[in-house]
């Protein structure tokens, strides 16, 4: 059995020596062909376009990206009897499960949060957008290999189309969420409009990590296997099912750095932004919403199991730098993720067809 070493450039496993492109090969052509190409203005076919041109080409492909996303979304439910109704039914049932458990069976759970059900479902829907994007884009290059080997187009179209698929599904879950939130006696206010910029920033962020995951998943096949575990860890540190505020209030004195990390986590920031837009109870209980009162804040943070516990008393705690700069941080994360993800993906543009 031959050992599975990887060949060094210019040397392949079967021992054939490949002439380096600089020195003329045996027999025909060699350097003179490159000169001929230059003379007639021919360009290498498998060459990465410069970033500006690449972006323009990507812009031309925008209708393909959206068309592909819509087509994939429709194709997902063509086998089901109820057909496209599942686009809405799936998030509805998802919310229904949480309602059954936290609205009917375990009624008075607060965990230091007013209106825990609305808090939870908002968190789950927003986080699952990121989670599903990350997992699906990590397989996009492998899944689309036949397409990549048949047609020439900017490869970034594919992960971006997958982000658009998840965006369309998330928007439908948002519609379900709006109805649920109204049922929870949360008032319809102008703050709801802030959902739009919050989700726009989240989509930018997800596009960035989608591009990152696409290249990583294409180059390292094990990445897709590891990802579900990473995503679950991320879910548990992002305050989807518990209040990050409470952890911060409890541990800020001794583990300041850890609570800072917990708050600066992009998933936590976007979830908080959407919660604050939709849920009156969240805005009222945000840090610093009421004048600072050390006793009330302390009672809220440490006595949440007592019967007379007021879940909205977190408003009496000091606001932190992060809790007052959520929008700036959300925008920062979105821009950084998108720029880095795009650059990272573009660097290996030519190699995605190799498999």
């Amino acid at each position, binding site marked *: 059995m031959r050992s599975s070493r990887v060949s060094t450039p210019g040397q392949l*496993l079967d021992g054939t020596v*490949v002439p380096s492109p600089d020195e003329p090969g045996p027999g025909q*052509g*060699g350097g003179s062909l490159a000169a001929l190409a230059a003379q*007639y203005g021919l360009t290498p076919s498998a060459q990465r376009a410069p970033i500006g041109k690449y972006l323009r080409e990507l812009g031309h492909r925008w209708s393909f990206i959206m*068309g592909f996303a819509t087509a994939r979304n429709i*194709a997902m439910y063509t086998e089901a009897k109820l057909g496209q109704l599942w686009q809405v039914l799936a998030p509805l049932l998802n919310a229904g499960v949480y309602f059954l458990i936290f609205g009917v069976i375990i009624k008075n759970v607060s965990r230091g949060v007013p209106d825990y059900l609305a808090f939870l479902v908002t968190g789950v829907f927003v986080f699952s957008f990121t989670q599903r994007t990350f997992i699906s884009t990590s397989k996009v290059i492998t899944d689309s290999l036949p397409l990549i080997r048949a047609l020439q187009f900017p490869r970034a179209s594919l992960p971006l189309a997958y982000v658009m698929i998840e965006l369309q599904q998330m928007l439908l879950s948002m519609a379900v969420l709006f109805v649920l939130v109204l049922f929870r006696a949360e008032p319809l206010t102008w703050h709801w409009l802030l959902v739009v910029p919050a989700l726009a920033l989240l989509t930018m962020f997800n596009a960035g990590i989608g591009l990152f995951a696409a290249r990583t998943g294409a180059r390292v*096949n094990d990445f897709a296997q590891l990802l579900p575990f990473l995503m679950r860890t991320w879910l548990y540190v992002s305050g989807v099912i518990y209040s990050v505020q409470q952890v911060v209030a409890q541990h800020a004195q001794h583990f300041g750095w850890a609570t800072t990390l917990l708050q600066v986590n992009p998933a936590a920031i976007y979830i908080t932004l959407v919660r604050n837009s939709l849920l009156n109870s969240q805005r009222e209980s945000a840090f610093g919403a009421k004048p600072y009162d050390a006793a009330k804040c302390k009672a809220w943070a440490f006595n949440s199991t007592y019967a007379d516990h007021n879940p909205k008393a977190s408003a009496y705690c000091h606001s932190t730098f992060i809790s007052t700069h959520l929008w700036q941080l959300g925008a920062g994360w979105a821009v950084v993720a998108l720029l880095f993800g795009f650059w990272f993906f573009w660097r290996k543009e030519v190699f995605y*067809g190799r498999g």
Partner: protein
Amino acid sequence: MAEPTVIVDGLHVVYRVYGAGGDRGTASTALFRIIGRKTRPAIREVHAIKGMSFVAYRGDAIGIIGRNGSGKSTLLRAIAGLLPPEHGTVYTTCDASLLGVNAALLEDLTGERNVRLGCLAMGMTKKEINAKYDGIVDFSGVGEFINYPMKTYSSGMGSRLRFAIAAAKDYEILLIDEALATGDAEFRVKSHARIDELRNRAGTVFLVAHDLEEVEETCNRVIWLDAGKIVEQGEDVIGIIDKYLEASGGEKVTRDPVTRKRISAPEPATT
């Protein structure tokens, strides 16, 4: 001298295949591999093209012949820029395109949606698609089935629609990979006419075909590949095809000694 459109300069293409052989693929062998510090799981390299150089000029129709696995399709993909070369370069005047959109289509969707999706994938704008839509459907001849999911099509209907979509675009450098002879006799005549049309409009055509008669009829040059290398190339299409037939043990063709045209294909011996 004619203007060159495609220059292939010392091209090498290598496929990497993960998990092909090497070990038995069990958890214990994987563990031993990690302990033994062999970092990657058995990667097999397939050296599909081993050093090729040639120049194609405007107006050329080049036939590429060779056995299965000799690197014909890989060469086309490398020219189209879909497979990165390991070494060497392929230079082209503009984007070379493969004729084919199969991979972009979704079987679960209706023919209509697939026509639009396929055209978008080939880089057309919505306006162009609206202008060409009726022509594509007419050409494919699937009729009212255009509103049914493609998975309900017979294989002939499916390939007719796929061909109709792919042929709706004009190409500067056209790469055709076999399997043109799809559908029934009537459609075959139609598709050949369409290919000729595309070929006349394109600057340069590469045709991969096992149907050597078709290569003889339509190509002015031929490249014979074997095991990833060029065995022979040139403008003596008939001479090279005859040599290829002899080498691969194919049936000999009887030719008129003066015109060198095929007289008639001998009936295959029945066993």
